[in-house]
């Protein structure tokens, strides 16, 4: 082959497509798996995390499904019937005990649905109250985390991507909110918002949810987004130095596009994990506030308010406290263990 000085010295023969015979030699041992599949596989190997996941699924499903067919409702006082004097025999029933009128009905041959956990001091079926309280606590935890996620995501990605003065100002605000003692601020805001919102919410759809839960969400939206924002900013700062971001910018991509298409998908695992770990935190805070009387509005139960109500008859009816205590600890524990499992599976780089 004669050498032309200014050519690329490429032998064109090397670029002929492979024949079918040659293709046979390429052996695929197994189909390549994606990052997500790898993560799921790693997660499934972690027995503790899988068991926690199953427990959470069972608790969540039963808190949604059981109220559909349970014959009692959470605010129905069984001893109170219109046109009749209050029947005190329904108050504080032990598990599987019945009220006087129910015993009479059973003797007459009717079937009466048992009170699996007995009743509370107002004669309400305790099982359905616990189920309902679980539902409320889970919902509060979930939505509070979503709020935190959205705000943290928005502000964190703006700070990380914009950099400069914007970043500086946002991060100083984050620093200050971060150093505020969160629980005290939560109590302060919850105790005031409760009263401020109660009037403002009358007549709207939000009234149904109750001013206390709304104020809880407001508090979360105001205070708890900072660690999420910090995390996402850090991720974006390191990701935006990557070549593919530079390539996208060079081809004229707008900032919104780069954030949505390149930066966020690459920190998605970090985002999911910290959201998952935020849920038990929110449940913890809600139950704490409910215990101080700043949580859900009565008669709506939450696990914290059930435990708090149970304090009054503690000596004689200990199980009224034990049941919500077990449920709440189980939920928080499983969520924490599952979050740890998710972190180990999807973010091998990140430790503790």
């Amino acid at each position, binding site marked *: 082959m004669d050498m032309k000085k200014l050519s690329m010295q490429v032998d064109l023969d090397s670029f002929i497509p492979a024949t079918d015979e040659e293709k046979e030699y390429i052996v695929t041992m197994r189909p390549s798996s994606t990052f997500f599949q790898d993560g799921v596989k790693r997660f499934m190997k972690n027995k503790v995390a899988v068991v926690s996941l199953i427990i959470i699924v069972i608790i969540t499903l039963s808190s949604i499904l059981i109220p559909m067919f349970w014959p009692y409702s959470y605010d129905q006082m069984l001893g109170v019937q219109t046109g009749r004097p209050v029947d005190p025999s329904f108050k504080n029933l032990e598990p599987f005990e019945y009220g006087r009128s129910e015993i009479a009905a059973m003797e007459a041959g009717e079937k009466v649905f048992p009170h699996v956990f007995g009743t509370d001091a107002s004669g309400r079926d305790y099982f359905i109250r616990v189920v309902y309280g679980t539902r409320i606590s889970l919902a509060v935890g979930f939505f509070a985390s979503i709020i935190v996620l959205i705000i943290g995501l928005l502000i964190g990605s703006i700070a990380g991507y914009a950099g400069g003065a914007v970043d500086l100002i946002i991060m100083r605000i984050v620093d*200050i909110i971060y150093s505020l*003692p969160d629980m005290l*601020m939560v109590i302060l805001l919850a105790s*005031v918002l409760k009263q401020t919102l109660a009037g403002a919410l009358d007549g709207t759809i939000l009234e149904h949810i109750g001013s206390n839960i709304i104020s809880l969400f407001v508090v979360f939206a105001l205070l708890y987004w900072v660690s999420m924002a910090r995390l996402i900013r850090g991720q974006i700062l390191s990701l935006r130095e990557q070549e593919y971001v530079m390539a996208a910018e060079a081809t004229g991509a707008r900032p919104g596009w780069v954030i949505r298409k390149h930066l966020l998908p690459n920190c998605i695992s970090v985002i999911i994990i910290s959201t998952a770990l935020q849920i038990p935190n929110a449940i913890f805070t809600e*139950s704490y506030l409910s215990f101080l009387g700043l949580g859900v509005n009565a008669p709506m139960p939450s696990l914290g308010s059930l435990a*708090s109500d149970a304090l009054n008859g503690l000596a004689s009816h200990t199980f009224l406290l034990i049941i919500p*205590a077990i449920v*709440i600890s189980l939920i928080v524990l499983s969520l924490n263990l599952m979050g740890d499992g998710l972190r180990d599976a999807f973010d091998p780089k990140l430790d503790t």
Partner: protein
Amino acid sequence: MDSKTALYIVKRLILAVFTVWVVITITFFVMRAVPGGPFLSEKAISPAAQAQLEAKYGMDKPLMTQYFTYLKDVVTRMDFGPSLKQRGRQVIEIISDGMRTSAKLGVIAAVAALISGVVLGAFAALRRNKLIDRIIMVITTAFVSMPSFIVGTLLLVLFAMVLHWLPANGSTGRGLILPIVTLALYPMAYITRLTRSSMLDVLGQDYIRTARAKGVSKRAVLFKHALKNALIPVITYFGPMLAYIVTGSLVVEQIFAVPGIGRQFVSSITNRDYPMIMGTTIILATLIVIMNLVSDILYKIVDPRINLE
């Protein structure tokens, strides 16, 4: 101390002062935003009497004037004004009364948590993956997942009502045991886990092997080389621990009827005693901010390798 550390300390100090100011400001304006004001719950009050009350507490002046007066009083004299519900008493008196009991509880709980946490954590690390390590980890995981009000009430039921070993009322002597244990359990569990993981980290370092190879006794390696370094991360937990104990004491004092600051705070929230709420929030928040500051600075001084930026 090099100039970089000094700069860091100055920065942290400024942030701390600023944070306290933000807390005072938020508290003031949030409280003033309450509809109806602090005298709402007074029954059948005439407008004249209302105006008189407002004049007495300086609430008839413009908001910003009130704010600056409040800020000045708080900063210069720690004066939070009189309590609205406990007539004739200054907020700061009530707080310092309650603080005496609460501080005793809190300090004992913190020291107990620190000592037992470090001992258990180091022990678990040395017996890594043995049965005893597993047991310690399971128990601490459980404690970390249980809210303090649950732990408190369960302890109350078990020791005061079923076994009758300890009194349920926590105002004096033996009665303080249960509230202290309740407060200490969570930080203890946390410190145990922290110490264990940092101890495992340190034990894997080269200098431990070097020390052993040089013939230093096992005990000396453990205490002089390993534990000393493993304890550094525990310093960072001082601030959060105080924050936990403060918020924990709100419910714990409620459960065990301890006459401390937490109980005062909760009852001032229920009867809407605004000067009390403001005063207590500001004092407790300042304490937490100071503790965070101290633990951050201590951390930086103890281990100059750490880059906190």
